[in-house]
């Protein structure tokens, strides 16, 4: 089995969904992003967003939750010659966009797509896997997208 197949290169994988209840939105925002339109319905109605909506960081964190809990990107069967690839840390992300606010009560469906993987000169035995993460609301409109990467130990 090739790494390409294990990583499901080019395949958009469903990670599941997450519902942004008003109380969940406010609890998250009180800890990490207490701007009025994330913690106060009244203030949110008067703001540019027109109603309570989730912190962008909440919509991104929920992608990670679905990514890890579904195991959808990492639990493929492995019958390659070496040891089963082990996922490690990520160096970060780029081009993260919040194209549309996520309002209270909305359910977001998340996906990931593996783009490519390459050897790491600085870390023999490891490869860098590039990914695209996305989230879509109940109308199918995109509410989150980003390009990310993760280190994978393959030897």
């Amino acid at each position, binding site marked *: 089995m090739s790494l390409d197949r294990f990583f499901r290169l080019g395949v958009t994988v469903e990670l599941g969904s997450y519902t942004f209840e008003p109380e969940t939105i406010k609890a998250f925002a009180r*800890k*990490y*992003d*207490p*701007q*009025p*339109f994330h913690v106060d319905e009244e*203030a949110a109605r*008067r*703001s*540019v*967003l027109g109603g309570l909506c989730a*912190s*962008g*960081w909440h919509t*991104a*964190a*929920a992608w*990670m*939750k679905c990514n*890890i*809990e579904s195991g959808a990107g990492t639990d493929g069967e492995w019958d390659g010659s070496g040891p089963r690839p082990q996922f*490690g*840390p*990520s*160096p*970060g*992300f*780029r*081009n*993260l*966009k*919040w*194209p549309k606010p996520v309002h209270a009560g909305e359910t977001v469906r998340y996906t990931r797509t593996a783009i490519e993987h390459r050897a790491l000169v600085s870390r023999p035995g490891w490869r860098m896997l590039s990914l695209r993460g996305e989230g879509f609301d109940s109308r199918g409109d995109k509410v989150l997208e*980003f390009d990310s990467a993760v*280190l994978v130990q393959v030897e």
Partner: protein
Amino acid sequence: MITFKIEQDRAMTGKRWAFEDFAEGQSLDLGTKMVTADEIVGFASEFDPQPMHLKEAAGRASLLGGLGASGWHTCCMFMRMLCDGFLLDSTSQGSFGIDYAKWKKPVLAGDMLSGRVTVVSARSSKSRPGVGLVTIRSEVTNQRGEQVLELQNTGMFLTREAAQ
């Protein structure tokens, strides 16, 4: 709708930071933040339940070298520092995204983080009168002066006149 506008404007008056207060090259201190094991495990349990973010021993055995915060948690801690640093006392209208975020070093339980923001550019919005676009590069460092997070993004801020 006129009532909408009046109410919205009232919420934005008296803020310390409006678009005009940002200038290229300006630097803003975000203060410090102590990272606790409880917070790391709390965030990870909810959003990133991988062993190195949940158990000290698993963290030590990983590339992180200790109980390490999820990178998304580090971003969230930074966001709170940004809010407390100046965003809550500004005419901020939100942001459309993040150009890049680099998780440069692990953030471990017991770390004391410091944040600093540098204004990369400040320009008026062509499509939205009364709104300015401020691009900032933010750096979070640990108690040893090592950068743990670098991030760049653009936020929208009302001008002082639009906020009156």
